[in-house]
């Protein structure tokens, strides 16, 4: 899928990004997309769920809560 996105940068920043992108043999938009993905990957929550074991552990917590919650509901008068 290709979509046109517009965002504003000052000309100096655009030149700088363009040079870095060229050095990496990428188009400016490709380089910007990769940079945005790399920045998002720094998010601790994203990193935690980025592995199978991390995701399984997370679902384990959800399941544990669900079981405790169901038990609590059953005990309610």
């Amino acid at each position, binding site marked *: *899928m290709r*979509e046109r996105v517009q965002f504003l940068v000052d000309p100096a920043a655009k030149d700088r990004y363009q040079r870095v992108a060229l050095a990496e043999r990428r188009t400016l938009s490709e380089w910007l997309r990769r940079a945005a993905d790399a920045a998002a990957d720094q*998010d601790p*929550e*994203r990193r*935690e*769920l*980025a*592995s*199978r074991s991390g*995701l*399984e552990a*997370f*679902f384990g*917590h*959800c*399941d544990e*809560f*669900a*079981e405790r*919650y*169901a038990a609590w509901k059953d005990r309610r008068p």
Partner: protein
Amino acid sequence: MIFVDASVLESAIGPAGTAREEAQKFFLQSLDRGVPLVTSAVTLLEIATALESSAKSARSDFLMKLVRGRMHEVWSLEAEDVYHSQGLRFRFPDLHESGLVKLAACWRRGVEEIYTYDGILRHAASAGRRGTRVSGGDRARLAQQAWREMRNRDP
């Protein structure tokens, strides 16, 4: 790119049952396959509204963690989505308002697959244009039934 609907996100963090097993399996498989997952702010609002008030705090924490951790992108609701959704109303009269908006958003953005346990949305998406794929198979159908029961049980 796969659009993940409220029913799947809600089931993955919800009570035990077929829907939960199926939804968690879907997330694990999509991680293994490296498929980018997307959803919409409309989906998150839909789940937040449906969560039981006594479990809302914990479950919405789980939901946000799953969304931040696994969703490649969460689409904002755009006026254009609502505009397009109104054009779909007569074609899919059984589809609820948020379903129309989600379907319009998926079609506008060229999504290849919609993963949902919502039978009406599944039907509309598969009957629609561009051959949008929807999740299939017996397990998904069982999950759909389990999700509907969960929604009925938890007011």
